[in-house]
């Protein structure tokens, strides 16, 4: 069975956020409900101050703390789907414990104050139990896996574009957007990445491109001390996340 993994090369990533936009388009997420986001960090001060950034999808952890805390098994890790962690919108009670327990802050409860005005939920009021119903929607909908537009009162998150990935020919290990045979099945963020900083493939296949990159270019997992063991790896300088420092308290060290 495959184990889907993602590799993000921070030496190539320009922080353009095309992935964020592509994800929002693909999955019809609300403003602020950024299943895929790009995080920017400042570190240090003149003359060695740095600006860092990293794209952040759900890490689809091997040991997902969000799954362990969910009282209803609405959040579950599907080993038959490459280890993707899904939210079953038919079961989620909206207790938000998973949002407390995810160290990466990648889960969303879109039933919240709107990020921008006008509120898209008022512009396109929800129909058929959807939280909102924009005119153009991804036709793929699978509430058991948290794919589509969610109903109110549930948690949503990145699905590694399972609705695309699952349609790839059996045995696909490298999802390379430049390969015409598989490009339709590549997750939206990977496919859209202009500098080709993102790779997607099978972590269980020894020869897969993702495995080679992780091995050759020293792939690391973020916040590894949490023990969640992400299936998302980062390459290149800048894969260290500075500790939280309030804006008015610059680093004086």
């Amino acid at each position, binding site marked *: 069975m495959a184990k889907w993994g993602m590799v993000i090369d921070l030496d190539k990533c320009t922080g353009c956020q095309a992935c964020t936009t592509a994800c929002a388009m693909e999955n019809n997420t609300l403003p602020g409900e950024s299943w895929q986001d790009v995080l920017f960090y400042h570190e240090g001060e003149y003359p060695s101050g740095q600006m860092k950034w990293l794209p952040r999808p759900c890490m689809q952890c091997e040991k997902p703390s969000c799954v362990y805390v969910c009282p209803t098994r609405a959040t579950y890790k599907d080993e038959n789907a490459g280890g993707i962690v899904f939210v079953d919108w038919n079961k989620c009670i909206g207790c938000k414990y998973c949002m407390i327990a995810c160290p990466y802050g990648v889960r969303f409860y*879109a039933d919240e104050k709107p990020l921008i005005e006008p509120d898209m939920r008022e512009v396109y009021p929800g129909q058929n139990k959807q939280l909102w119903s924009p005119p153009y929607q991804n036709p793929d909908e699978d509430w058991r896996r948290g794919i589509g537009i969610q109903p109110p*009162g549930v948690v949503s998150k990145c699905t590694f574009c399972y609705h695309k990935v699952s349609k790839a020919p059996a045995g696909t290990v490298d999802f390379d957007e430049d390969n015409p045979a598989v490009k339709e099945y590549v997750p939206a963020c990977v496919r859209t990445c202009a500098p080709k900083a993102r790779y997607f493939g099978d972590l269980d296949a020894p020869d897969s491109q993702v495995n080679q990159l992780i091995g050759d270019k020293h792939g690391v997992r973020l916040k590894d001390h949490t023990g969640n063991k992400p299936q998302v790896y980062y390459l290149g300088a800048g894969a260290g996340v500075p500790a939280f420092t309030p804006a008015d308290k610059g680093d004086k060290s």
Partner: protein
Amino acid sequence: MNNNSNLLKGGMGVVLLILSAVILVVSLFVALTNLGSQGHASFNTSSTLPWGQPIATYLYFALASSGLGLLASLPLVFGFKQYYPVAKRCVFLAFVILISGMAVLALELGNVFRMLWAIPLNLQVQSAMFWMGVFYALDLLFLLWKFSKLDAGEWDSKTSKQVGIASFIGVLLASGNLALIFGMMSMRPFWFDGLLPIYFYFTGVTSGMAALVFFVYLAHGFSRDRMHPTLQSLLSGALPKMFAALIGGTLLFIAARAITGVYSNNPEIHLVWSDYLFASSLYHLSLWVGLLLPFLLMLNGNFRNQAGVQLLVSVLVFLGLFAERFYFVVGGQVVPLFKGTWYPDMIAYTPSLTEWALTFVGWSLALLLIVLGERFLNLSAMPDGVAESTSARPLAAG
């Protein structure tokens, strides 16, 4: 004998009944209309700070209930006979306060009715929240059962004893597990603490004691003379001493957590104390006026036994611990987790009108049920032997 002395059975009870019913209806109306029209967007919580005041309110009620359950076990399980006069009231208060907390939690959830089948059918035994459902359901059941035994006058029968022990264990499991919902979250270092159950037991009993003292006085029109002599001697003897010790212990716990937190270099703990809790005048108020002042008052042997002081202390502790729960729940989330410069500062949170309405739903529902209980049940009942043995003894008035 002292049935008639319960003021809530008379006109004052009717007034309180109407008052609490009005507050309940109004706050429920505000909460339901806002939730109906805006959903949870009517809360000021967000994906970055998902648990707000309604969760803190639930926590407060659940722990006050557990505290009352533990107080009830003093006479019913451990044989501290002088606490018999409050045992039945403790069990009743524990029951209705828990119900009120659960009502608030139900209105906080995204899909409350789904919970009824989704939790039992999926048996996610790895989740502390699953066990919260199991243990608090058991707790509720045992409280009801124990109350029905006491109401039937069965204080010392074998089943009554067994139900008492079961209830005691149920309370320990429920509130200890509730603590672990927070205490096991290693990704939230402000909460992560294996000894959190002990902290919850202690503070829970303190808030339970505050509720007990207040409602005992309320039932007797704030006058000790109306009370049964056994109850009078408890209120001028063992109980205030224990209340003092509980507040003192609570302060010690908070001090230990604060010192560790401020000392720690980890900004996810340190900053919560230095830049959120200790930067808030409301937190200072809750700490110094809500806990330290009551403790100092209760330290003094003369003050401690005065009815007015006890009443004041119970109200202050009640409010102080409510704030404590709020800052505990929110404090675990104010440092943004993995958000980069999108969140350059701590996450600001003040409860919205709807969230306040939910808090008032909880308080008014509890008050309503308590007054109903005082009117229709004999909550001051105690075993005959206890009532008689002390009633003859002269008592120093408070």
